[in-house]
Structures are given as C-alpha cells and as structure tokens.
C-alpha cells in the first residue's frame, strides 16, 4: 500500500526524546487507518503528506509556549508531496515526570492539531476520542531510551550524528 502520510522526526542528539522509530511508524499507521482513511482524506488522492516534527530546546526569545506550526506547506509537485513542519519545545519532555509518556502525548497532539487545522472536516473531539484506542502497552514495550541506531531520526545518517 502506498504511504500517503509520513511523520519525520528531527532533533539534535541532546535535544530530542530517545524514542524508537517504531513509535513514529505506529502513529503513521494509526492516523492513516483511524482518521485519514476513515474520513477520506489524503489516502488515494493526488498528494502525499509529510509532517516534519522538530524537537528544540526552549529559550527566552522563543515566542511560543509549547509548540508551533509552519504557516503553510512546501509543495513538491514533481513528487506529489506536501510537506508541513512543526516545532515542539523539548523542555516539555525533558522536564516531565514521565518523559516517554509525555513524548507520546505530544506527538499525538501535534498530529491532531495538524489534521484538524488543515482538514476542517475532522473535528478535534473526533481525534480526542481515539486516544483510548492508542495501544500504550505496545508503545511501552518498545525500548526507551532507545539506542541512536534504534531511534533513526531523520537525517541522522546524512549528518553523521552531528545534528
């Protein structure tokens, strides 16, 4: 099956949650099946969608509290891709009592805001109700903290771990 929705995780080694790449894949499949296919969005259409989520330490000059979303998408017509970007302040995770759970919840929240803001036919309450279907037992069975090789953040290979 063609992959119509992709999540890209990015962040410097000391400013990102050490989660397995399987977390990302789980959310891709979850939202594809439960939301996008269910609502007839993206799947089977002309465009594939990539959502790049950047983790970044918070600083006093940052103008947003927790997360921000790029205004609009970058369109690559030759590949039929629309790429959206979001930033999460890593401090929200680093300072959390349960950082792994916080990471899972924040990724869920980012994807929720992205989908409901971009595709108005999906209401926030619809995705809120799906939270109960998240298989936390599976996610918590994955290695955490995961090794760098297991994390497979986007661009790790390209940057030679220098990000």
């Amino acid at each position, binding site marked *: 099956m063609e992959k119509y929705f992709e999540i*890209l995780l*990015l962040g*410097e080694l000391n400013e990102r949650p050490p989660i397995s790449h399987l977390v990302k894949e789980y959310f891709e499949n979850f939202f594809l099946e439960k939301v996008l296919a269910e609502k007839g969005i993206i799947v089977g259409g002309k465009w594939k969608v*990539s959502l*790049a989520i*950047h983790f*970044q*330490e*918070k*600083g*006093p*000059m*940052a*103008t*947003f*509290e*927790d*997360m*921000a*979303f*790029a*205004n*609009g*998408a*970058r369109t*690559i*017509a*030759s*590949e039929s*891709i629309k*790429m*959206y*970007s979001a*930033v999460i302040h890593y401090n929200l995770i680093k300072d959390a009592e349960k950082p792994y759970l916080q990471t899972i919840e924040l990724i869920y929240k980012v994807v929720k*805001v*992205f989908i*409901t*803001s*971009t595709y108005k036919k999906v209401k926030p309450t619809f995705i809120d109700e799906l939270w109960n279907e998240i298989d936390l037992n599976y996610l918590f069975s994955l290695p955490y903290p995961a090794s760098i090789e297991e994390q497979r953040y*986007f*661009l790790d290979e*390209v*940057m030679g771990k220098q*990000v």
Partner: protein
Amino acid sequence: MIFCIKLPGGLIKWCRVINFKESASGENPGNLKTPSCFLPSSKEPVRFNLYTDFIPLQKIVTNPNLSL
C-alpha cells in the same frame, strides 16, 4: 537546528538554521531578525523564520479557522 526540505528532483535536502539556537536562547539577540535558513545549492533560497513563518499553538487554538 535542521530543517528538511524536498526539492524538485527527488532528493531530500537539508539546511541548518543560521544561529537559530543562539537566537532562540537569547544568547545572540542580534541575530533575532534573521533566524532563517537557506540551501546554498538552491538558486532561490528557501527561508524559514521561526517568528513569522510559524504559528504558535495557542493562536491556532484560539482561532480554529486558522489554516496551517
């Protein structure tokens, strides 16, 4: 901070935001006006500005009609 960008031609390329970290942390406020990035290989620089190109979540929540 690294942003990924896909350009016509198929390859995912990357760029580093110039002084983004310093600007965000306040260590180098002189660069605050240009926390943008570019692709040196691109004829038309692709620029991000964290402060003008990104919408804080709070703004989206208070204005649900705002599209990303």
